[in-house]
């Protein structure tokens, strides 16, 4: 069912066509090649692992209600926090922001019918739930207990499950790398005609930077994991100092991945809020180019700062300085983004939709996490803070207050597009306020717990720390309950939610020009793109949109482009 090429200026003749619709449940929903379906699969699996990892977090907080440790032995506790960290980082945030939102939204936003390599996409996805099952099944044989960082030599002595951990993280790493390659090629080669890089939605810019990181950094992790696995199972001495190995080798390899991984987790969240701010402030995003380029700058700088995790680990003192200073340099492009988002709020007609609330909440908590990051980047203060609850507080401000808030915002924003149903607005607002407040109650006190001398990864602590630990625990219980509101909202929306129009927010990126949910082929005709999508008040900058998609009937969705003739040039 090929579409005549003259409708799509710029496309290679005969190259673009709509495939026949897949038939049967398996081809449609389980082993689908459609990036949208794969994206939803990522989201379902990711949210499932989010629930499991979140329950592990609650076990941690119950344990820390009393100084002596309330419920479980230190052994079990160590396994619980190790899998909480691993599960949240590798099985929740990374798959949700790249595989989930990336697969669903990015091809739609660049006007593509799918990603460049659908089979690779399918392969990458199925590695993920398998990896997740392997990771959590390590509980059956003795779960890893040395934290999500698994530093040797202690991880060499760890329970058998530590090897399963290696396998699981190796698999999810390969999956990330494949997704990175896939997205990179998709963004490079499959943008709609006329969509130059400076007309690309900012979410796609963020996915581009993330894909670069995923492709390059994750290979270092794969090498480190393979070596750890070989040493554990076959006694090859990579990390054992007694036999000529180096424990610091692991730390360098691990952080060479895991620092960029911080940006793998946060850049897509930057992208998500960059879509939400203009939509709900009814304004062009302020400083489009600076936001786009700063994503790339952050990605590149992200490769040069890994040893700031290792200031106390043992390195030549002079070497601390370049890592410290480069880390501080990252604050500048990050600051540019934050100020640009603030300037987008200025002069807007701000609608406090739950997505917007989470985006604003993200802005506040992420800024806070960024500032404590500078405290950890400065070598002298890091010598005090490293390895304490201050670090725990910091990572939760950037990963929960940053990435997870971004994921929540994205869920509220794209839910109608994905499900075809509206979520309950009020419940969303309640979810935001409960989450925002209880998040701060949970993690803010951890800063001073750490500064006053509470180390991380301990199953028991000194009695004088009990008060703030209890506050944090109570906060975390509310936080968990507030997340249930989100799940309830999703469930009730699926069952009895109002049908969603194609463009409920009057947003302007391409995914909103088609029906909700989109047809499997995305666009009947691939539109030509004339401008970047953020000029509210102007007609949509697309040429050749299919008129049938205008569900609201007010003509706004497919108003003729102002300079239709320019489309011919592309």
């Amino acid at each position, binding site marked *: 069912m090929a579409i005549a090429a003259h409708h799509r200026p710029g496309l290679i003749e005969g190259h673009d066509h709509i495939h026949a619709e897949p038939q049967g449940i398996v081809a449609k929903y389980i082993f689908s090649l459609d990036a949208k379906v794969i994206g939803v699969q990522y989201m379902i699996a990711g949210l499932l692992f989010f629930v499991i990892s979140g329950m592990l977090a609650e076990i941690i907080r119950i344990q820390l209600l009393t100084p002596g440790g309330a419920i479980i032995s230190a052994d079990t506790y160590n396994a619980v926090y190790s899998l909480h960290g691993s599960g949240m980082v590798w099985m929740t945030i990374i798959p949700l922001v790249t595989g989930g939102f990336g697969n669903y939204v990015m091809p739609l936003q660049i006007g593509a019918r799918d990603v460049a390599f659908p089979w690779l996409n399918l392969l990458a996805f199925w590695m993920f739930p398998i990896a997740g099952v392997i990771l959590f099944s390590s509980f059956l044989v003795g779960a890893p207990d040395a934290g999500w960082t698994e530093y040797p030599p202690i991880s060499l002595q760890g329970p058998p499950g530590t090897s399963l951990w290696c396998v699981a993280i190796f698999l999810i790493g390969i999956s990330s790398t494949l997704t990175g390659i896939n997205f990179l090629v998709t963004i490079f080669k499959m943008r709609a005609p006329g969509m130059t890089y400076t007309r690309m939605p900012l979410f796609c810019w963020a996915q581009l930077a993330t894909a670069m990181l995923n492709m390059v950094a994750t290979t270092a992790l794969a090498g480190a994991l393979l070596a750890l696995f070989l040493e554990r199972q076959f006694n090859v001495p990579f990390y054992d100092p007694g036999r000529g190995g180096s424990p610091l080798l692991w730390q360098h390899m691990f952080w060479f991945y895991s620092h960029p991984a911080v940006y793998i987790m946060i850049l897509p969240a930057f992208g998500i809020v960059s879509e939400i701010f203009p939509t709900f402030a009814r304004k*062009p995003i302020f*400083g489009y180019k*600076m936001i786009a380029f700063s994503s790339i700058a952050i990605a590149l700088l992200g490769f040069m700062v890994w040893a700031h995790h290792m200031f106390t680990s043992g390195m030549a003192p002079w070497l601390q300085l370049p890592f410290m200073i480069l880390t*501080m340099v990252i604050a*500048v492009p990050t600051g540019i983004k934050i100020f640009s988002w603030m300037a987008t709020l200025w*002069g807007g007609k701000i609608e406090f939709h739950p997505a917007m609330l989470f985006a604003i909440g993200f802005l506040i908590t992420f800024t806070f996490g960024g500032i404590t990051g500078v405290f950890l980047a400065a070598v002298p203060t890091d010598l005090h803070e490293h390895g304490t609850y201050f670090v725990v507080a910091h990572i939760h401000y950037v990963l929960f207050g940053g990435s997870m808030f971004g994921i929540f915002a994205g869920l509220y924003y794209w839910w109608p597009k994905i499900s075809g149903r509206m979520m309950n607005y009020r419940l969303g607002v309640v979810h935001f306020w409960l989450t925002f407040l209880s998040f701060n109650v949970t993690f803010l006190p951890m800063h001073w717990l750490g500064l006053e001398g509470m180390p991380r990864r301990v199953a028991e602590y000194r009695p004088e720390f009990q008060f703030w630990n209890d506050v944090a625990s109570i906060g975390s219980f509310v936080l968990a309950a507030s997340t249930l509101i989100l799940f309830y909202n999703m469930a009730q929306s699926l069952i009895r939610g109002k049908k969603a129009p194609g463009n409920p927010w009057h947003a302007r990126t391409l995914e909103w020009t088609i029906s909700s949910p989109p047809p499997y082929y995305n666009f009947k005709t691939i539109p030509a793109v004339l401008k970047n999508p953020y000029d509210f008040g102007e007609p949509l900058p697309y040429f050749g949109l299919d008129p049938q998609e205008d569900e609201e009937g007010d003509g706004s969705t497919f108003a003729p482009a102002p300079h239709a003739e320019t489309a011919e040039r592309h």
Partner: protein
Amino acid sequence: MAQYTAPRKQNLGPGFWQVAIGLTVFNAISSYFIWTLDIDKYLPEAAAPAGDIDELFRFLSVIGNAILVYVIGFIVYFSVVWRRRPSDGPDAIGIQIHDNPKLELWWTIIPSILMIAIAIYSVKIWANLQNTLGDVLTMESVGHQFNYEFRYPNLKKSVYDDMHLPVGTPVTLHVTSADVIHSFWVPEVRIKADMVPGLVQTLRFTPQKTGVYRIICTEFCGVSHGNMVAKMTIDSQQDFSRWISQQQKLQGQGGGPIALASGHADAGQALFGQKCSTCHSVGPFTQKIVGPGLGHLFDDPDHPSLVTGEKPSPEDIAHVLVNGYQGPDNSQGKAGPSIGVMPNRQANALSNTDIANLVSYLVSLSQKK
């Protein structure tokens, strides 16, 4: 859809400057309190670099506080002033501006300047740390699952989980580990170093406040990681000397006189075989292995008189065994015998009895002739 009309030149919005001034005043007040905060009151600054590190901490807090005050302040203010009002039509849009190169330049330059200031301040404090005095008391700590071993220069045996330091004495502490990675952190000193097997790291600090503090492991090291805590006591100089001599007495060494007469030559011979024969033969002085031959200490004229300048006595031999000896290195063709370095009793782990036995053995060797 409402016809879009270009907005008139806008001012910054109602109350912008009032809010900016309000935030500035709030920032000034809160900065003052942060800068003058006496952290020592909440967590004592018990040793020398703590004050420096707290100074940097306060500096970072002042800047971080300023950023937070303006960012959160303006976000809340913008959200209130620029909210969508019920009177706004469904097509109401915000002010259509895309960028402002001048503003963007400023918000690149100002954070850059702040970061340069932070970097300079951090490097300055970092340099202070590198130049912190040490070396008056040089000692070692070894991490084990799950305790801290401390090695003092004038104690033969290690002390566990109980570190004593004299106030006002610059300390150099070499840390390493015997098994997995541990960490040495004293919150009241504000510094830490990981104890990595196969790697020696150095901490330098000068205790300033007497008291009892905690040494905490911050690198996960196994099931009892949470209990890996040791005591660091900063003593007055007198208390420290008293503690050292108490330890020496407990360890049965150094304090009491060596009863040379009670030595047994046979026991000495066995011990010589274990501890000395790697470096020393029992031949004449010139029969060297690493050190000279010791078979004719009392009657070989080649033996130099190391201790008193007189012919050696059993007491002199004991003295060398206790204290070790550093002789001239004349191996490169200089005149005189080459003796090299003899380690002291701590290095050789010799008890009083061991020394008495060795001396009797060496005396008996000379008498055989």
